[in-house]
Every structure is written in C-alpha cells, then in structure tokens.
C-alpha cells in the first residue's frame, strides 16, 4: 500500500482539478493507496507517524518542490522509498527524475526502480540535488531575463550581464581548512554523488565585465555574506545566509523511472 501525502494548495490548488483522474488512474493501474492531506508542511513528521504502517511500501508526495523538500526532511529517518506526483511547475526534482507531469508520477508508482540518493543538510533541514545562493535582485533579474519572450521575438540579446554593484562580499569556510573571500553574484552548491560524495561549490562573479567561476569541493561549507541572501532549492527559499551546508552520510530512497540513468 502506498501512502499519498497531498498538498492541496500546491500549484495554485491544482490538486482539485486532477483529483478524480488521479484516483481513477491509480485504481486502473491497481495501485493500492491511502490518501492523506497535508494541513501544515511543518507537521509532516507527525502525519507520517500516524499513517505509516507495516504494509506501507512507499510514500508518494503530491505537490511542488516545497512539499517534497518538507517530506524529505520528515522521511529521513524512515526506510521507505519516496515518489513524486508533481502538481506545480516548480518541482525541479521531479523534472530531474524524468517526471514531467502528474500522469508520469502516477505511472511511476506502478512501475519504478528504487535508487538511493545522498542527502545534504542546511541548518536543520535536509536537501537533495542542488542549492543556489544569490542576492535577491540577481535572482529576480535572472528570472525576468529568461522569461522575456518579447525580447526573444525581437531577437534581442538575452544575455544579462550583472554589474559589479550586484555582487556581494562573501566569506566561505570549507571543511575548516580553506577560507575563501570574494565578491560573488551567485553560488551554486551541488550534492554530487559521483564526486566522492562531496559538495561541488561553484562561485560566480564578474571581473572586468567578464564572468569568472571558481570551483571547490568540500564536505562542509559555511557561508557568510555582507548582505543576507536567500538560499534556494529549486524555486523555493529554504534558508538565508549565514548558514552551514554539508554533505552527510545519509541517503534517501527515491522512486525513479526504470529507464532513467541513476545520475540525477
């Protein structure tokens, strides 16, 4: 039996439009399930305690990236695979797993392979995949420049050059061995299973109007900055600087399409 944790508010209440066809598809595919509604993303742990039984084969999260992140947090102590049925477009983890829509997510429950993914920790929260740290204005500028279809239609140059005034003074401590100081536009931290299970930390800055990147690997990264910056997992802000991010020796089982390579 699969436990479906549903966030009805995700994707602008999208679940109410897909509820009937979703249940019909689950029944047609003969997937035994129990649907539980999430009232509060902070209470998922309590919800799981009350509903996970011996015959629970896995937990399927129905919602967006924020819902999945909260569920990963709560499920870190359980030995159950997690599946995703995306109901919003901000579910980057679902996209990375090859789950384009709710129909793919439902089919996945019926037929999948289970892959262990490493977890990272930021503050007290767990995360998978990657994090982005940047001044708010850089994130907004990036979003607007990407979505400007009118400029694309005109054939205008879409490349946005961040100005030095957009960068923020940052100090990073890696594994208590390296101290890094620089002006950054963006930091991207990837939890890289292939790279000896460490974090891959990429710093982006602009020098003489040209983009410059730096790459480091570490198990633990402390980030301090002159301005508080949001830390995004997908499109969701999960923390702010200053913070500590680490690769930890913990994994979570993920349901993945059978024909998808293990690398996410």
């Amino acid at each position, binding site marked *: 039996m699969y436990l479906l944790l549903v966030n009805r508010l995700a994707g602008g209440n999208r679940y109410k439009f897909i509820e009937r066809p979703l249940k019909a598809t689950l029944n047609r595919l003969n997937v035994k399930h129990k649907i539980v509604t999430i009232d509060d993303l902070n209470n998922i742990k309590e919800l799981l305690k009350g509903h996970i039984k011996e015959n629970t084969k896995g937990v399927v999260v129905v919602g967006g990236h924020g819902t999945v992140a909260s569920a990963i947090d709560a499920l870190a102590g359980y030995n159950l695979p997690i599946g995703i049925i995306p109901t919003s477009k901000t579910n980057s983890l679902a996209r990375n797993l090859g789950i384009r829509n709710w129909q793919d997510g439902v089919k996945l429950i019926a037929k999948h392979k289970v892959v262990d993914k490493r977890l990272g920790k930021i503050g007290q929260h767990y995360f998978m995949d990657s994090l982005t740290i940047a001044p708010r204005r850089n994130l907004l500028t990036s979003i607007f420049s990407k979505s400007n279809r009118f400029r694309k239609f005109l054939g205008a140059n879409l490349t946005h050059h961040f100005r030095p005034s957009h960068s923020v003074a940052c100090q990073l401590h890696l594994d208590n061995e390296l101290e890094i100081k620089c002006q950054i536009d963006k930091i991207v931290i990837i939890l890289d299973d292939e790279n*000896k299970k460490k974090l891959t930390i990429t*710093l982006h800055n602009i020098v003489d109007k040209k983009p410059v990147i730096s790459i480091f690997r570490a198990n633990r990264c402390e980030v301090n900055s002159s301005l508080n910056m949001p830390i995004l997992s997908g499109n969701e802000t999960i923390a702010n600087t200053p913070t500590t991010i680490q690769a930890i020796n913990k994994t979570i089982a993920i349901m993945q399409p059978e024909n998808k390579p293990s690398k996410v």
Partner: protein
Amino acid sequence: MSKERKDFADPNQFDTLVGKEVVVKGTLESEGDVQINGYFAGTIDSEKDVIVSEHAKVKANITGKNVYVAGEVDGDITASEKLEILETGRVDGDVTSQALSIEPGGILKGSSQMRETESEKPNSTPTFEVEEETK
C-alpha cells in the same frame, strides 16, 4: 598525461579552480587538477596537476604531479614528474622534479634538485670482487 596551455582555461578540467580576484587561504588537498587564477596562501597538495596561471599569486608550498607556473609562486615546488616555468612565470623557492623546463622569460630564484626515475638507477651488479690484501 601532461597539460597543454590550451587546457588551462577550461573549467571542466579542474577539480579545484580558484578564479580571478578570489582570495583563498589554508590547506588545499586535492585528488584532481588544481588551477589558481587568483590569490592563494597556504599549502597546495594535489595528486594530479597544479597550474598557476598568468595573473595568479601563490604564497605556498606546492606538491603535484606536473606543475605549470605562468604566474608568481613564493614557495617550494615538488613535482613528481614535470615542472614547467612558462615565460611569464616566476618562482621564488626551491624546486624538486624529475624534469624541469624554464621557457625564455621564466624566472627561478632558488635551488633545483632533479629526481631520479626508477629507469635511471643503475641495476647492473659488478662481475668481480675486490679482494683486500691480507698481511
């Protein structure tokens, strides 16, 4: 395989890449290639290649497989294979390597010690013995 100069700019080649105007202090231990384009102070210990590019300033002892210096290094360098000081490179320290190359314009201020490879060590055994005279 040793690097060519065209490889220096490719960020995909490197395990660690210190960008321009980035200041790093501490101990860097790496299992992959390291390139310094900014400022580094401390110790660099790589199992593979270390590249100090043209605008870089390094105040550290460097250990690597092949070491290429196009910038400034103030410290000792130990290369298990090759050390190459390029035309814009300047090393102020002692160096140890199997092979050493200094391009015209490159500067080395310090002593240089060449390492023997296994193939260079004499492996023949003498065919006679010297007998000591007994009185």
